[in-house]
């Protein structure tokens, strides 16, 4: 127990340790060299282990995160992802360093232990609750209260259904949906049709539906304006591209 609190006393957590390493080894927080940070980080953890200190899971989690960021950096054509992972870490570190600074400032303001107040005078007043509420608020409050407890139970199978069985959107459905939209508006922006979908399979089905409709000459794409023209509006079935 003592050993554990020793670790905790030295660093508030993995972010704290990283901030320490960054300042100690003069790394640039805005352009972290992941390889050398990872090396320093693992050295620190290993030295704790040698001293038989308990290393809490949060430190190990961060170690695996750093390893992952480094791995991504080694993969070809993953610069973007690597950059994003690195920036996420930088952002978190900056946020935490601001938090540390705020904590330090607050700490210097603390006068709580030197200010004394007194308890309420023992005057006989009637503290009985006098307001009234509809009983329905009780039910709402109960379901809020149980929200936490209920979530400790294993989730039911239905919860997983939508994850396993994605709804398959048929092309036919989308053909109808596109035509219905056109019947109302006459023309419509292509990206609006796509934005009406909430998932990838819907977007694909919309795309296929559009190809199908163009092939059959029911609609046409108005060159670079990204608009659809209903063939029913008596327009050129296929406009000549510029």
């Amino acid at each position, binding site marked *: 127990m003592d050993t554990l609190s020793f670790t905790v006393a030295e660093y508030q957590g993995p972010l704290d340790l990283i901030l320490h390493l960054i300042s100690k080894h003069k790394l640039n927080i805005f352009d972290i060299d992941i390889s050398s940070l990872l090396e320093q980080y693992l050295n620190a953890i290993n030295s704790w282990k040698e001293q038989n200190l308990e290393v809490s899971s949060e430190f190990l989690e961060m170690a695996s995160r750093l390893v992952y960021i480094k791995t991504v950096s080694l993969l070809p054509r993953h610069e973007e992802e690597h950059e994003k992972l690195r920036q996420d870490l930088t952002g978190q570190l900056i946020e935490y360093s601001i938090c540390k600074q705020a904590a330090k400032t607050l700490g210097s303001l603390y006068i709580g232990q030197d200010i*004394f*107040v*007194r*308890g*309420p*005078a023992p*005057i*006989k*007043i*009637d*503290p*009985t*609750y*006098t*307001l*009234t*509420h*509809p*009983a*329905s*608020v*009780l*039910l709402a*409050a*109960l*379901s*809020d*209260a*149980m929200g*936490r*407890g*209920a979530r400790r139970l294993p989730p039911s199978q*239905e919860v997983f259904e939508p994850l396993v069985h994605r709804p398959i959107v048929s092309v036919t459905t989308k053909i109808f*949906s596109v035509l219905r*939209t056109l019947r*109302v508006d006459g023309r419509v922006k292509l990206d609006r049709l796509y934005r*009406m979908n*909430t998932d990838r399979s819907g977007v694909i089905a919309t795309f296929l539906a559009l190809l199908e409709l163009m092939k059959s000459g029911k609609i046409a794409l108005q060159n670079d304006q990204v608009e659809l023209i209903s063939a029913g509006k008596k327009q050129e079935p296929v406009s000549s591209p510029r």
Partner: protein
Amino acid sequence: MNWNRLERQIEAIVFAAGDPIEISRIAQALDVEESVVRHCINRIRERYFDDQSPFDLVMLDNAVQMCTLPEYGNVIRSALELRRTTPLSQAALEVLATIAYNQPVTRSFVEQVRGVDCSSIIRSLVKKGLIEEAGRLNIPGKPIAYRTTPIFLRSFGLSSLEQLPVLPEEPEEEKGEAKQLEGQMDFFEL
């Protein structure tokens, strides 16, 4: 002897003590004779009187307590009783509902349901007369059980516990989902 400074320190101590505090303890803390403390207390009382202060130091045996003059009783009471009109917080409502639907229950049951400490909320609900102790449960540790009171029924317009709104069969979340889907259909049908 800096009388003024001593008086201030005594005022501070007696104020912070709240309850009557022995002259001897004050004397010890200030490292002076008890007679000095008594003398200071008299000086403070005279000053309060001259200044028409609403406070007084009252001697009880060998202890002293700071209190307000009786003529302020009414205005104090009316200010403090206005507290009763503060509506229950969300947290207090959750504790109350948990007790209402499961009574008699222990504090630890309520805390298990909510996942956070509820001792001060339970204390304030007892003070407000909305719940009360219902003896001790016959399980290890003999914890205190709580139940709702007639004031609870009155506050929520119920004539008995049987009238508590019934829990819906299906869990809330599913219902919310169905509603959500309906909303989405509307969107498609634009």
